[in-house]
């Protein structure tokens, strides 16, 4: 069963002779629970694709369906709520809220929904991410690896069906990178979540279920990993 369906997505910046085609008729599907890596050169259109799938940007043409829902057919307010509840984001530069503690950062999407977090689930996440003792620290008091673990926690707290990660290990050393990826996989497996991850790291890409390559705005499916 497909969780994500991307149909003929095009994205063009500018007009006329100066226009740049960042994405050219990109189409693909991702099944529920699948772990997909997106690779490509800098400026090839990977981040644009991820931003469009996450409804952070709009395509020039084409359709994106998540769980059977055409995300660009709903209004902005509903789309924000949909994103808050169904999509988890992990950025290369963490993008934590500097004024909130680790725990507050993790439950931030729940706070935006004016809901109380499930305490048992929060403790479980803090344990998996090994952040129990850092729960009252501010992001500025954490290392890069710890900050990215908080970002993973924030992406998982609403139990979203889709996790979008834009080079989550780009700012981390090798050891922290392996830890973060392992955690992400463990969590997604446990909670049956789909992961779409941009990476430059060949090892991480090879460990994904499937690899997609973007080159000059054109997407090529490089196929599934052999067990």
């Amino acid at each position, binding site marked *: 069963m497909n969780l994500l369906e991307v149909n003929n997505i095009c994205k063009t910046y500018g007009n006329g002779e100066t226009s740049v085609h960042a994405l050219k008729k990109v189409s693909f599907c991702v099944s529920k629970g699948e772990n997909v890596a997106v690779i490509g050169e800098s400026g090839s259109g990977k981040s644009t694709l991820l931003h469009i799938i996450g409804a952070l940007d709009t395509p020039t043409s084409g359709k994106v369906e998540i769980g059977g829902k055409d995300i660009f057919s709903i209004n902005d307010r509903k789309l*924000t709520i949909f994103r808050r509840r169904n999509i988890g984001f992990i950025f290369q530069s963490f993008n934590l*809220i500097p*004024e*909130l503690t680790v725990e507050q950062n993790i439950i931030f999407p729940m706070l*935006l*929904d004016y809901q109380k977090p499930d305490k048992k689930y929060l403790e479980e996440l803090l344990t998996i991410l090994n952040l129990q003792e850092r729960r009252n620290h501010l992001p500025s008091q954490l290392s890069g690896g710890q900050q990215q673990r908080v970002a993973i926690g924030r992406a998982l707290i609403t139990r979203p069906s889709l996790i979008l990660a834009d080079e989550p290990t780009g700012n981390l050393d090798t050891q922290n990178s392996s830890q973060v990826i392992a955690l992400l996989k463990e969590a997604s497996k446990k909670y049956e979540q789909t992961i779409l991850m941009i990476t430059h790291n060949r090892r991480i890409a090879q460990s994904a279920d499937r690899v997609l390559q973007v080159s000059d705005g054109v997407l090529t499916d490089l196929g599934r990993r052999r067990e």
Partner: protein
Amino acid sequence: MKSYLGLIPISAKLRRRQNRMTLLCIIFAVFLVTAVFSMADMGIRMEHTRLLHKHDNLTFQDVMNSTTGQTLCLTAAAFFVLVLTAGVLMISSNINSNVTQRTKFFGIMRCIGMSKQQIVHFVKLEALNWCKTAIPIGVILGIIVTWGLCAVLRFLVGGEFSDIPLFGISLVGVISGIIVGIVTVLLAARNPAKRAAKVSPVTAASGNSENTVPINRAAKVNLFKVETALGIHHAVSAKKTLTLMTGSFALSIILFLSFSVLIEFVGYLMPQSAAASDINISSIDTSNEVDRTLLDKIGKMDGVKHIFGRRSVFDIPAQLNSNTVEIDLISYDDFDLDCLVKDDMLKKDSDISKVHGNSNYALATWDKDSILEIGDKIRVGSEELEIAGLLKYDPFRSDGLTDGEITLITSSDTFIRLTGVTDYSLLLIQTTRDVTDEDVTAIRDILDQNCTLNDLRDQRTSGTYTAFVFCIYAFLAIITLVTVLHIVNSISMSVSSRIKSYGAMRAVGMDKHQITKMIAAEAFTYALSGGIVGSIAGLLIYRLLYNALIAAHFSYAVWSLPTIPLLLILLFVCMAAIAAAYIPAKRIRSMAISAAINEL
């Protein structure tokens, strides 16, 4: 491009939106100075014309030496300094934020070989480049506003302002505007230019150009909703901004309250009564010998707008609380009684409606030492009068104090019933705008030898009063406008510095409404702290100024809390906070989330 300085107009075109506020500040400073100096110049020209009517041989120096000339020059000079200071502060903070936003750009310039001196030169010339458009706009605005103000003074205020030139262009005004524009920009660009020159070339290489303020305390998300808590935290965590913003809000409150005292002071200096007369006709020996039929006769004559009379008897015995006292009794016609209400002369709980017609009620003059109260009864002859209201002071004495004497005001009918006197002691005439000297002579000609006519038309102060109050309000409007612009700009800069963080919040699910609430919470935190500090300091200063300017010179003046001015300025503070939140919130809302995340 002939040199590296050719980058300046290109950069100005690309950064048009970011430079808008700076341009606005320069236009504002130039406009203000042009308008103020042009108005002062027009005032001097008016004085010159007025004095020329009186004296034939008059030089420009004579005008400059006149009190009006000197006051105008001094006021214009004070304005100049004030506008220059405000302008330098505001433009400097704009250029500073401009430089901060382009730290990486200056790093790159340094990387590819621009010297520190060249950077300083670049920033200063960039600032001067704004003057090319801002100064002409400011000057033209200043000239147009001067024409408008002159028209208002000439046609609406009139009186002594009838000679003010209508479409004059003041060279002094235009030159002052241009000078203030250039000097302000050069002074304002000095520090930011030095700051830009200090940027290390490593900044460009490392890409580490974000200015991060260390955060030591977490937001209180358990006390407020998360967006409100974050907004409050943004306001209170940056101590320097909080102090500046609190100061800006507080300053507008303090200035407003201080100027309210000034307006009240002018009111005491030049009391503007609805019953103020242009011509008085009185009996020679203060007796009631002005024939009552004159009222109708004069009322029908040319140039007369209103005519009303007063009768008076002094030192008549009366009984108050079983004590014998002497009182003065004065009659007021209905128009005169109505004017007491219009002039807000009556104390609280007074009921003037009881006094009208043939009644048993009277009004009494009052001061702090007066023993009379509303409801007191005074027996005059065989009749008993009840006090229906009290005046705030004694209008029949120059110091406003009763000196322990009782003066009662009754209606005409009540006075005639009590005393049997029907003729007047005083007739007061308000003339029409087009009254001529011939009209006044005609009135004088019908008077008999028992009456004397006083022509008070030259002593009218309503024109000066209106012009003075108008100037105070204009000054107040300018100050508040500058403050609002500064507040809006500061909050806008605060938002700009967090734009990436806002982008991240939007990405993880904060909706546009929540973003607006967060910015509004920040703006209202500044407004609240400014409101508290401003109200306390403003009231203290109000009290001090009141004592020094009013209470010390007008002993009948009673201090009371300036509730209306305070509520007005607090309302204005709220509106400023709404405006300050609305503009940057709108900018964030219209920005694509991916663009906000990729900012910087």
